[in-house]
């Protein structure tokens, strides 16, 4: 089980880090919740996110907007993932907590620790038996975002 979750995490991170953004929504169920928030907002139970999507289609739209609409300087991410801490629920879904760190490299070579935090995931099998995210809450440790958050975390 641990390997299933770790592999899903690694594949999702690879899609973002390698620039294959179109692949990334495929790691989510059709009905899903993806939210990027911060530790402070999470503790206070504030509902809003920096990114808030309650369907895979909204994730696809975000990728489409990043490709076709939005202006941002060329950049790439490198996700460093911790080992998932998992708990299997009675319905077969898995709750997973995974630390992450993202280093952002800009087109001029400038690198920074762009974000660090924890993924709070609920993972389930889809109709074909593949493990997919039903919910991914990205809780960033810092509430400060440098310039903009374009590529999802």
């Amino acid at each position, binding site marked *: 089980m641990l390997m299933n979750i770790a592999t899903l995490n690694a594949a999702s991170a690879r899609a973002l880090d390698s620039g294959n953004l179109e692949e990334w929504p495929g790691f989510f169920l059709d009905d899903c919740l993806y939210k*990027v*928030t*911060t530790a*402070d*907002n999470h503790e206070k139970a*504030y*509902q*809003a*996110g*920096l*990114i*808030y*999507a*309650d*369907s895979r*289609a*909204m994730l*696809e*739209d*975000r990728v*489409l*907007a990043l490709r*076709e*609409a*939005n*202006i*941002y*300087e060329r950049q790439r991410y490198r996700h460093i993932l911790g080992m998932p801490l998992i708990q299997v629920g009675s319905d077969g879904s898995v709750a997973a907590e995974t630390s992450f760190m993202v280093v952002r490299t800009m087109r001029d070579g400038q690198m920074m620790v762009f974000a660090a935090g924890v993924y709070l995931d609920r993972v389930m099998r889809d109709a074909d038996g593949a493990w997919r995210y039903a919910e991914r809450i990205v809780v960033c440790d810092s*509430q*400060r*975002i*440098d*310039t*903009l*958050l*374009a590529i999802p975390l």
Partner: protein
Amino acid sequence: MDQPVHSQVGAWPPGLTRIPFWVYRDAGIAHHEQTRIFEGPDWHFLCLEVDVLQTGDYRTTMMGAMPVVVARAEDGEVVAFENRCAHRGSLICLDDGGRVKDFHCVYHAWRYDLRGNLTSIAFRRGVNGQGGMRDDFDMTQHGPRKLRVTVQCGLVFGTLSAETPDFEAYIGPEIMVRLRRVLHKKVEVIGRFTQQLPCNWKLYMENVRDTYHASLLHTFFATFKITRLSQGGGVMVSDNGVAHASTTLAAAQGPDTAYAGLRADNQDLKLRDPGFMAAVPEFGDAINLQILSIFPGFILQQIHNALAVRQIVPRGVDTMDLHWTYLGFADDTPELRTMRLKQGNLAGPAGFVSMEDGAVGGFVQRGIAAADGEAAIVEMGGAGAEGAATRATEASVRGFWKAWRARMGV
């Protein structure tokens, strides 16, 4: 305001249609902005009234570089004072907010009441008859600087100056109507985020007031007809240049070719889940977008149902923090709240629209690195700073400079 600021880098071209680039780069200008603007006769947004609902609630904030505490005093009044101990200057409050009986400085335990009055000094009488303060030390003569405070539509504003005019006179009656239109009942905070922008704070405020750029820089707006200059709406600017409000009416029916050929016009772009773009009418009018700003650093945003206040805090000549507070109303239905959460994707550091606003100030800051002798052109819509029935104008940007120059004597 008596003595003009003598810049070492150049003079201001005549009129309001040119902005010399040194104004975004000069450390001397930034220093004078702190004393003349952030500590001067302007109303500065401090926090929301709901941040300090009960007696003893406090919230820390900034007026430019100056740290400030806002608190609810025993008599129910919202008060504010500099977050600086009278003794050695340490911060009095170290957290974003909370609830306290009184305040004390951690350094030497000097205590303050909820209004920022100094109430006790540790070991004032010394220890075992030795040391301590002189008997004639008068605690009433020492304390952090206190602010005048006004609460308007659930927003707390403060000023250090006795000369700052009444709030409604300050922003003007027209803008007051636009403020009341959105903040007409009790709000609830639904998120707080900070965006660090790599630009001088004035570049961001100009961007907010720049009604000309929105549908050109932001493809998302134009393609989905959230705002195009060919839609109805306009911009109003207070006579003193202090406040502005721009509005966009819901899109008219029928084809619109005003943007044909521009990059922002991308009619092939189709959302798979466009449901979140449908605004729920909640203000009793056809305005689906209103951006309101108050000099120097406050913005109120209504983009469909995505409501937020933004506060500008300069952090040096070429860096600033933008503090976003996302809002709902306390009586939101679950459906309306969900709509706000989904439309939150438009704004903020990851917003389909505003992520570009976060970057474009940095593009200017980097572009002008060697251009202290050059000037920006703001001539769209003429040379004045009056309101207009179109957004194809830079009147509101000129209004900002009218207010800025009046304070800086430049």
